[in-house]
């Protein structure tokens, strides 16, 4: 497998919303390449006709009655936010459109 370039790492970092510095980009280019070339051994396994595991079976029932349940108090939740307007019930963020 081709090694990771700095551009590859930068593209993944953009998808992951991670602002990496130059040193991190260099480090991850090397380490992700090494980890993936090791992980690549899975390609040697014959998986013809084998379904991927989507969940570990636990015999569970996911349906439940559609009843109103108590949930967390709004003010309590907003109090944990880095920036919020508790009176009006908003999380506050920097502007979205530059």
């Amino acid at each position, binding site marked *: 497998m081709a090694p990771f370039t700095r551009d590859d790492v930068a593209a993944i970092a953009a998808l992951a919303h991670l602002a990496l510095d130059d040193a991190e980009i260099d480090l991850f280019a090397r380490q992700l390449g090494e980890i993936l070339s090791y*992980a690549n051994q899975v390609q040697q396994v014959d*998986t013809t006709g084998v379904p*991927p595991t989507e969940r570990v*079976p636990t015999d569970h029932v996911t349906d439940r009655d559609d009843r109103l349940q108590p949930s967390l108090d709004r003010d309590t939740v907003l109090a944990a936010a880095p920036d919020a307007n508790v009176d009006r019930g908003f999380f506050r963020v920097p502007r979205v459109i530059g």
Partner: protein
Amino acid sequence: MIDGTTIRSLRDDIASGKRRAADVCRDALTRIASLDPKLHAFNTVVGERALERAHAIDRDPDKRRHAPLAGVPIAIKDNICTAGVLTTASSRMLEHYVPPYDATAVSRIEAAGAIVIGKTNCDEFAMGSSNETSAFGPVRNPWALDRIPGGTSGGSAAAVAAGFAPAALGSDTGGSIRQPAAMCGVVGLKPTYGRVSRYGLIAHASSLDQIGPITRTAYDAALVLNALSGFDAADATTSRETVPDFTAALDGAARGLRVGVPRELVADGIDDEVAAAFGTALDALAARGATLVDIALPHAKHAIPVYYLVATAEASSNLARYDGVRYGFRGADAKELRSMYAHTRAQGFGPEVKRRIMLGTYVLSAGYYDAYYVKAQQVRTLIRRDYDAAFELVDAVAMPTSPTAAFRIGERAVEPLQMYLADVFTVSANLAGLPAVSVPCGFTRGRLPIGLQLTGRHFDEGTILRLADAYERDTNWWREEPALQGHD
């Protein structure tokens, strides 16, 4: 003193009135204050809150006599939410996070009478194998202070080994309860996926994560598992499977049980002293009446790459929630939303968490999804089928918990791939959703603990606990305690 004490004996003493819960709690807090500065097992100790609750147990004779964990001090891994008590996942991202609710596991053990004494240090977001990725500094192994305690529930394992509490809760995504239990010389149980609610567990990899107990004995693990287990409407993956009394099967008998040994898998890359202790442990199981059977798990050798592809993919998705909006850390000075996200995450996450988010994002990205993620999930199916086939022949599978005893702090921290290989015997139980327990089975010449791992069928924690308990009756490894000196 609390050191050396089991839940079982402590429970009897508290129920009979021989010891007061408040005194037990105070002893635990005194020991922590004296010794934890050396170990750093705790991120937060909640002394006052614990004592108040212990007094409440003492004032309630009915609860004191009948609640199954009444007055038992318990430490909680810091990635399990505790209402009103800091829950950091050992990350800068959640350094000041106080959850508004309890994890179901916490509310259940408290309902059973246990007293939460504090939150234990762990690898950041439970990502690591040595506790060195904690943003607040590593935990030290009580048996050798220059060594790691294992990870990621290293603080929980160290707390039990050091006699700070007879029990702790950990979480296990790829071995994070069992490996530190082995390296600290205590018992660690990862229950079957779906046995214990994950509600309030800070998610790492949702198809693999499971909360479980770390204790001194198999019997104590059964007691805590009794309290933790069962369906929870707040976690749709919990099972409605009947929860037995897990202590009922612990009668010391192993006769008639068949224990599978994957000889080929355990032949490679394991330390000589671990191999010797494992062999002796197998002899002891046979002497108790268990039948040893050679088995093959032909795809288990691929478990590490499968695990690191699947777990990082799930982690990259789960950790997308840390965006600086609703709770936790927000990076300073961003003028615009996307840049706020990127700087919050760059400053809030440590290197191992970033590395795994990067790997997982890549594995799930267009063009690579089929080659890595889907392929890994197919090989995961083959690993599960190997176990299904093995459990046609045997009742449990035995392996060493870890290929080596505890390594030195810093020894492997530089190269992530080397660190990942420490999980070779533990990850397949998570990939297959199976219960597995680590029980102390000896020491190296340098007096570092070694663990024996027993893996069972889905929802058959009873059999592996029975074997572990039977093994403990013939061996005294679990009675050994590290020599720790504080400033009493």
